[in-house]
């Protein structure tokens, strides 16, 4: 069997699986899987750029995804004018003071001769700057968070169309990636991994604690949508008439139409990204990247600037993850910082890339869809399995109750098993690199 045919069959299989869900569990569920599958595919593309093209070990995907989500809030939500009046300018000033302190410290570090004078000045700058920053920052934050804490209590966003958050999410993630890359990319792969793991946790901690920015664990809900609301569709006589002429229930139909609209938007983004990624991978630039990945020393000997190229691909891949994060928050219509967990948003994406096939864009996309499908469907399947296993047991026995209750945790085990099996028997993934 030729490779392309095999790939088409694999994609066909996943498509059939999702169609199957449509018939068994309803089209709403199936479209839900498609939408998150599209977003997962984009995340997997981002990680594939870093790992598959360049061999960079980034396990901080969650942080970049969360930054994309923050962008959706900062762009899409209407501004809270009272909060801005209460402390907006002061918070900005405090942040400027913080940035200036760090910039001054870096300047001193680079432009003064080594010695006690430099160390002393640096310490004085950093400690003094920190206290000035806190003195401006703390009261401003208190003022902002005091404005209607149950309803808003944060600065809000710019009130622009939420679609604009997608490029902004990319930019935020890219900026963070540039900062991390500048400091950590020279390090060995394991160290880079731990550094990215740490930065992701810090980004989540900021989102959870800086209520003035993201409402923290109080969550931001009701982010405006790029597509119509179900209620508006149901109130639209035209839409209702069309649904009835199709013989569909307007309420169920409206949910499906909204999901289809999202799917169309996501599909455009994914198609554009795949096109770009394929172009890049098959260009001299892509060949250079793979050359660097396979033998850094040889590439360096050929005059390639390995560190710069690594930084470039790290920023690009993280930006794609940020885009996916902004899209996901747009789809959910809410930002819930407490929901970001590394297993779900970092390591699951890695499973997608490894299972799909690292180094191959279509592999990553396939992995995104397949793994997301399994992530959603393993739970009901596990419950089914447990029902069968426990069928013979007496009702009310503790083992039966425990097994039924624990079925939900089978998905983690399944993901790990799948990953280990693929690494053992097909280490290049389902669609290997060409």
């Amino acid at each position, binding site marked *: 069997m030729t490779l392309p045919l095999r790939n088409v069959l694999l994609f066909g299989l996943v498509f059939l699986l999702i169609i199957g869900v449509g018939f068994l569990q309803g089209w709403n569920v199936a479209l839900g899987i498609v939408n998150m599958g599209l977003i997962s595919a984009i995340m997997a593309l981002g990680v594939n750029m870093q790992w598959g093209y360049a061999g960079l070990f980034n396990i901080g995907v969650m942080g970049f995804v969360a930054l994309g989500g923050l962008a959706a809030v900062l762009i899409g939500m209407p501004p809270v004018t009272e909060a801005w009046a209460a402390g907006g300018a002061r918070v900005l000033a405090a942040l400027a003071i913080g940035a200036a302190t760090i910039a001054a410290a870096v300047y001193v570090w680079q432009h003064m001769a080594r010695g006690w004078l430099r160390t002393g000045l640096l310490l004085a700058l950093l400690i003094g700057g920190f206290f000035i920053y806190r003195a401006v920052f703390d009261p401003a934050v208190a003022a902002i968070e005091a404005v209607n804490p149950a309803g808003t209590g944060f600065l809000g966003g710019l009130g622009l169309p939420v679609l604009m958050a997608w490029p902004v999410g990319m930019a935020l993630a890219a900026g963070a990636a540039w900062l991390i890359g500048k400091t950590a990319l020279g390090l060995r792969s*394991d160290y880079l991994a731990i550094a990215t793991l740490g930065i992701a946790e810090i980004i989540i901690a900021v989102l959870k604690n800086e209520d003035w920015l993201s409402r923290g664990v109080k969550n931001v809900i009701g982010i405006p949508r790029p597509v119509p609301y179900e209620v508006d569709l149901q109130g639209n006589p035209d839409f209702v008439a069309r649904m009835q002429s199709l013989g569909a229930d307007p309420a169920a139909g409206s949910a499906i139409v909204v999901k289809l609209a999202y799917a169309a938007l996501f599909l455009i983004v994914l198609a554009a990204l795949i096109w770009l990624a394929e172009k890049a991978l098959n260009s001299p630039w892509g060949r250079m990247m793979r050359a660097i990945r396979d033998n850094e020393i040889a590439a360096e000997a050929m005059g390639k600037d390995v560190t710069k190229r690594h930084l470039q691909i790290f920023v690009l891949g993280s930006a794609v993850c940020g885009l996916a994060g902004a899209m996901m928050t747009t789809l959910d219509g809410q930002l819930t910082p407490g929901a970001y967990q590394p297993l779900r948003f970092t390591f699951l994406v890695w499973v997608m890339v490894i299972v799909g096939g690292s180094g191959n864009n279509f592999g990553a996309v396939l992995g995104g869809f397949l793994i997301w499908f399994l992530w959603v469907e393993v739970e009901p399947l596990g419950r089914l399995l447990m029902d069968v296993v426990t069928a013979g047991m007496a009702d009310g026995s503790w083992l039966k109750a425990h097994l039924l209750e624990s079925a939900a945790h089978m998905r983690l085990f*399944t993901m*790990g098993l799948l*990953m280990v099996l693929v690494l053992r028997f097909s280490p290049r993934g389902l669609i290997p690199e060409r």
Partner: protein
Amino acid sequence: MDILNAIVALSNFVVIPALAYGAQLALGALGVTLIYGILRFSNFAHGDTMAFGAMATILLTWWLQSLGVSFGALPTALLALPFGIAVTALFVLGTDKVVYQFYREKKVKPVVLVIVSMGVMFMMNGIVRFIIGPDDQNFADGARFIITARDFKEMTGLDEGLAFKTTQGITIVTAIIVVALMFWFLNRTRTGKSMRAYSDNEDLALLSGINPERVVMITWIIVAALATIAGVLYGLDKSFKPFTYFQLLLPIFASAIVGGLGSPIGAIVGGFVIAFSEVTITYAWKKVLVYMLPEPLEPSSLVQLLSTDYKFAVSFVILIIVLLFRPTGIFAGRSG
């Protein structure tokens, strides 16, 4: 008098908690560093190995408790600990046979093993949640305190109380015993020496007749013991929750790297460096400063540099600083 009060407050809120936490991190980091030294990869499943070991011990503890067995003032979990270690050792040896051995024989690049360990991490996490559930479990019993704050105040007549929890005492004592045993084993016994030889130079060790599979097996057993002890001590001191153990991965790796990956002494020093920085930077210093400073200088705010939720940021920043200025860690570990 004020100085004494300040010292007591400092010990109560900073020194003792950081000592206990540092001991737990050091035991975890020792496991990570041993695997790195002998098997030559960063084991991302270590946090979940700790969770598994703690879980095995907790189940045995509950069984002992249901039989009415107790360990007097000490927690029953200590009685169950050896069995927990045995179960965990069997479990990781099984994992090694089924998963890692294949890659070792193929001599794959270390990063492949790291990714494999990510798969193992998922599976272990799933198994632990499947068996004991994702919720908090409490299994500490015995006396709660060695000294309570009130007794201490009555004893000394100071305004500040010093509470010393049994679990903190046990953690520190156990860590000292375990670390002493570890170093005795590594430096004095034949097996320990062969492990160090294997870690230093694999080819030379093979040439001198050291059986690599035996070294690997003993490493896994020691790692299982360290992980279980660390997991149980952490669970006794705070509480057992599978997700928390997964999150410990970051400070543990930070400890191992700060100390120098592959260096056992480094892992211990790294653990305490990370623990003390985390606790001191997230502690509200107001109380201590009020005792120490003359009245006009007394602070009005809490003098907390960072809120406790940013403790990850602390381990991370220390990690970055050490890596930037001394890329092999404090005790020059392996860098290649």
